[in-house]
């Protein structure tokens, strides 16, 4: 807990923000090419965020501001917990449950400030966001539990290292294929990408919780969105694709996973919120439980390997 840790953590957060925002910019170009148009410049996402920060803003009361600050603070703390390629801002804080629950602090902060804005659309959007979270989080967590049970550790960094020691075939993508499919599906829900983004539907509920945000609040929420995307994608890369031995390897895997998620979201329609819940409690939940029972009872893929 020395000053160096805090400086490293701050630089890490800045780096994560810069890295993810530029990848979002590149992906906006890829999405444009998907729709046969040229798309913006790669640094357009930076321009949007700093433009939003430069505008004047309104406030609906202290909880409206406090919620946004708490959300961004929670998300920045979660970014500090993420281990990448043997870099850890603080030792021993990369526990899976800590990351997924501090992520919930960010969600709760934004939900509180959105409802505090007094707009009914914001409350409807938040209600949908929490229902959506109930849908995608449970199957993902079951897969994570099976992983903790089989690797006997809940720290993401150690799980990534174990996969790296076993070489390329050691990645959980090959060891637990069903689990990886479930994780990628719930990744769509985590990122709020197309099939499961009914809580920020722009035309239907005027972009849900974001309805009353403008100026610096909107800029901070854009930063929050990019950082939470960074957290979720690096969570998936570390747990299922063997994390990176070096920053470069991690970056490539990160880009591939994010682009695949973006392309899937480019072509998918939008589920109604109760359809999303029903969908997640059919195939993904069943696949997660089957994967769990395979690993626990027979040990394939973890203890016994071909």
């Amino acid at each position, binding site marked *: 807990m020395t000053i160096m840790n805090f400086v490293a*953590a701050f630089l890490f*957060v800045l780096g994560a923000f810069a890295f993810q925002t530029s990848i979002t910019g590149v992906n906006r170009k890829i999405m444009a090419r998907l729709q046969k148009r040229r798309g913006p410049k790669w640094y357009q996402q930076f321009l949007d965020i700093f433009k939003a920060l430069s505008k004047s*803003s*309104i*406030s609906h009361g202290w909880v409206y*501001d406090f919620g*946004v*600050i708490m959300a*961004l603070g*929670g998300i*920045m*703390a979660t970014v*500090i*917990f993420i281990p990448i390629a043997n870099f850890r801002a*603080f030792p*021993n*804080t990369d526990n899976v*449950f*800590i990351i997924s*629950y*501090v992520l*919930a*602090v960010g969600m*709760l902060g934004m939900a*509180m400030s959105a*409802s*505090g804005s*007094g*707009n*009914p*659309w914001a*409350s409807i959007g*938040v*209600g949908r966001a*929490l*229902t959506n*979270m*109930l849908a995608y989080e449970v199957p993902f*967590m079951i897969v994570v*539990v099976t992983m*903790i*049970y089989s690797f*006997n*550790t*809940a*720290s993401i960094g150690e799980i990534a290292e174990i996969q790296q020691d076993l070489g390329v075939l050691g990645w959980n993508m090959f060891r637990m294929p069903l689990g990886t499919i479930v994780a990628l599906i719930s990744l769509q829900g985590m990122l709020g990408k197309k099939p499961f983004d009914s809580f920020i539907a722009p035309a239907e509920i*005027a972009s849900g919780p974001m*309805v*009353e945000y403008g*100026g*610096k*609040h909107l*800029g*901070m929420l854009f930063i929050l969105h990019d950082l939470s995307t960074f957290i979720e994608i690096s969570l998936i890369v570390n747990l299922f694709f063997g994390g990176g031995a070096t920053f470069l390897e991690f970056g490539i895997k990160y880009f591939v996973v994010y682009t695949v998620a973006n392309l899937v979201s480019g072509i998918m329609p939008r589920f109604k*919120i*109760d359809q999303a*819940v*029903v969908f997640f409690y059919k195939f993904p939940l069943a696949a997660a439980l089957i994967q*769990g*029972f395979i690993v626990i009872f027979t040990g394939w893929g973890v203890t016994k390997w071909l």
Partner: protein
Amino acid sequence: MNLLSILAILIIGGIAGYFITKLNKLAGAWLTVLTSLTALFMLFGIKDQIGSTYEFLYFTFELTQIGWYFAFVLCLTYAMSAFYNIYFMDKYLYPNTYTMLYILSLAGSVGLFFAKDFITFFVFWELVVWTSAFIIPLGKSRKSAYIYYVVSSIGSMATLFAILWVYKLTGSLVIREAFSLLDVSTWTAIFIFGLFIFAGLTKIGIYPFHIWLPLAHGSAPHTFSPILSGGLVKLGAYVAYISVVLFPAYDAFSEAWMIFGVPAPIYFLMILGAISIIIGTLMAIRQEDAKKLLAYSSVANGGYILIGILMVDQVTFAGGLLHLFAHAIASATAFLTIAAIAYRTGTTKISELGGMIHRMPITYTVYLIAIISMAGIPPMAGFVSKWLILQGLASKGLLIIAFAAFFGSIGSFMYVFRPLAAVFLGQLAPKYDNLKEAPIFMVIPMVIMTGITLFIGVFPKFVLEMIMKVQVEAGITAVTMNGTAIDIFNGYLDAYHVFVIFGFGFFIALVLFLLMPKARKVDLMDTYTSAEFIYTPELLHYAHDFYAPFERLYENHPSTLSLYSKLSLKLKEIGLFVDYLMMSVKPATTLLWIILFIATVSLGGVLS
């Protein structure tokens, strides 16, 4: 200053309370505050006399670590809720009986935790059941008191039967001694274990016996529901502790059938706990009344506690006990905030309230921290306990229970957020314009409880040390701590580091926020309504049917209450039929009985 003096103060205080409140209601209320506070401080006084036993008439008490821990939780909830009596006393029909029953129920539960033999245990158990059964009808409905009493007495009768059976088998009534002498076949062991834990299931409100909890908590007087869900539910946890740890459950079922490495009867009870988590969460999400919502959340959290205690291992057991503490504080605080709102506005229905934060900001912050702890989000105490439970379940590989645990914790985000958004945030109705903040003696306990939740959330060492002593006393390997971090074999949680890093992140966000030009304050009604003009705040407040799309999924859900009423109707029919057979005056039935008699006699002759 020993255990007997605490019990003496409580019992004498209770009886004296009856007469004092007759003279002056306020004095009676202050009496409840003083007695529960002295009980709490004296409890700390006798912390070093662990292990000593006491004798009084034919009651014997023994000061154990586990008893001390439970008594500490109970006294804390009682003391904090007692402050509310000051304001609610003149709202009750019979204030004097209320004070007496209030203090006697605390005396009952404290005596129960330190009972050495079964008789003392059962006497104080019945004292608690009776006193709380009479307090509940002081609130809105009598029917819920009947259901509460019936379900509790089923549990206590089952436990009484088990006690007498153990007494017949071992000849001793002292709890620890009787259980150690007991060596019976697996099936009788399962039967005794089942009967014993029955009282625990009914008190915690586990699946088949959870029907009384929402009714009793929902309609109990505003100051007693925090105690009901914060304190009295924990009695069931104590009985579960006895029937799993003192009664050698794990080695009694060692050769029983094993599922997932857990003996079958214990695994069955954990499944019941898991079901009650899921049912509690689903029902809490769709409640319209804030108190019923919190009652169902107690059902869900009761499931967590039961699963934690049943596991009796290093991590999940500690998680269960810590969750007991964290849930007691968080649920009591949440109920107190709802009571404060009911005191000011007179209603607890979510759709009738809105925008309370503008008039009651302190109550809002207290409620916010309470639900952060109930939902198990860092940096609150609820997170540490849920973390322990989830780590334990993950290490044992119990997938179904883990599914229920995750469903419960993610679902708790939904139902804790519903009152936050619909009652506290959103538009303020004009009729609540001149609302004042909760009075001073309501704010004090709320702030203390919030401080405790936050403090234990950041430094769990203080409560975990008590739990480690309990684990050592129960013969389990205690959970290991190094410095402020919990360091177990498959996980590492330094709550203090998490809090500091969260503070660091918050600081960066705050600096970024203050760097930018100041935001212009805008009224709540000046909001985006797609360019249409709306002037009445009630129209613009989204509170009724908050999770409508999700609730539609399980609209016509099967309810256990209707199952029981169907059973009782079936019973009535059988009764009527027997009555018709035996009591009717028609000659045909007497003729029937004569023929039957002759047939049996002649048949008997043939057979022999």
